């Protein structure tokens, strides 16, 4: 199917370009919006991987939640007029070296390993199946995730409060 290929290349290029903008753009607000679009593109990749439910979750949590949270963080911690972030050249060189090494290693690994691939078949009604897995095989992680979210919620509120003023009340 040429159309599917074409669409896939579009989505993948979109994701990678957005990721590059996230990493290399000088204006942090541009990075944040690019991150948002990157998440959006990743949701598109999930659709290609027959994981529609996950794509929806990705949109709901990443695009609607985490990106907005990050944008709020930027707007609350920066002088809005001055949104550039300066880099140090030595870090750039070493960081680049390490990243490229990792990239090379990973791609080498991807190419060298003989993956035991089976032909993918879309699973009917995947939300139901995922729900069943949550309630059977992954019950304890599911409960722990719930507790973790609660802890994170409370912890974020406690840390984010204005140091001493609020606690005295």
């Amino acid at each position, binding site marked *: 199917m*040429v*159309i599917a290929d074409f669409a896939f290349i579009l989505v993948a290029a979109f994701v990678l370009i957005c990721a590059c903008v996230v990493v290399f753009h000088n204006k942090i*607000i541009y990075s944040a919006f690019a991150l948002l679009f990157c998440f959006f593109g990743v949701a598109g990749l999930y659709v290609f991987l027959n994981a*529609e439910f996950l794509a929806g979750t990705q949109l*709901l949590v990443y695009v609607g939640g985490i990106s907005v949270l990050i*944008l709020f963080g930027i707007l609350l911690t920066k002088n809005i007029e001055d949104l550039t972030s300066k880099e140090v050249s030595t870090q750039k060189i070493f960081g680049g070296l390490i990243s490229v090494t990792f990239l090379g290693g990973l791609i080498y690994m991807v190419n060298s390993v003989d993956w035991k691939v089976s032909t993918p078949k879309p699973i009917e*009604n995947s939300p139901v199946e995922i729900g069943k897995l949550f309630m059977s095989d992954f019950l304890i992680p599911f409960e722990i995730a719930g507790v973790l979210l609660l802890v994170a919620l409370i912890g974020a509120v406690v840390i984010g409060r204005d140091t001493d003023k609020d606690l005295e009340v």
Partner: protein
Amino acid sequence: MDNIFLWIAITLGAMVGLVSVVGIVSIYLERKISAFMQDRLGPMEVGFGSLVNAIAGKEVLREGRIGLAQSLADGLKLLQKEDIIPDGADKFLFKLAPMIVFAGTFSTFAALPLAEYFIPADVNIGLFYILAISSFGVSGILMAGWSSNNKWGLLGSLRSTAQMVSYEIPVGVSLVSIVMLTGTLSMKGIVVAQEGWFWNWHLFGAVGHHGLIGFVLLPMMVINFIAYFIGSLAETNRAPFDIPEAESELVAGYHTEYTGMRFAIFFLAEYGAIFVGNAIAVALFLGGWYSGIPAIDQANIPGIAPLVFILKTFVLIFVVMWIRWTLPRLRVDQLMTLCWKYLIPFTLFTFFSVAIYKVFIV
């Protein structure tokens, strides 16, 4: 191959047409309803005939018009307006923002079940898809507010985002109750579960399907419906939850700096979002395309199903406008109080009730 492209083109064209028509009709209705509630007559001059005459350069007759083409004429006017981008604005994001807001609304139309075989994309996670994709518009609003380099724009967008993110919780929980009851995320499946007489609608507890015990569900579903309705009002920034664009404080909120066609796109997106919000309410609580009387549904009159659906939606839109021109604007703290102290506990209560019903009674 060709068929696929043709199908995509037709679907997209139909959706664009639907969004535009819905926007234009809602704007006209809003102007008329607001006028009637304030003892005015509203737009009375521009009829379709006079609009055609005006474009053709002929004499415009004033008699017998009730302003039917007013919003179309406004759209044409906005198209011709100068496109102003403020000097201090971030040009790229400023241009991108209205597109994203519109895309967020436009994409939700894809999963609306207008009739049994008239759904642009019948995804098996339809409801979830609508919820997820509508959160995409939030970022567009934030982008518009930040990029216009205007303090009112920024404040309005921050308020709007905070409001939309918090009201997603009661909306989501109240919808999950319905999903739990029907056992499917597909919009079509949810509507099909309400077939038959109108007491089968989820608003009335789907009594027909669950028997007399279904009356237990009735108060739960009414609470759910009201919670969802209030939440959708807040999600679409409608009065009384329109603090993001409170005129007396913020000029026009996040679209203060927008003019001409870009402003029109924001406007269209807003009314599109209202339509989608109420269409979900219709599909989930009010029986979707079923008229509530089996004889009418089984008569196989062509086009009756989408008509019933759209009529129901516009009844709800009328209520939305009615509320807008009745209630005063809420304060920010009142807004959050309503969400966290009233809506979320109530929706959680109904959620648990429906869960207990589903596990122990059915």
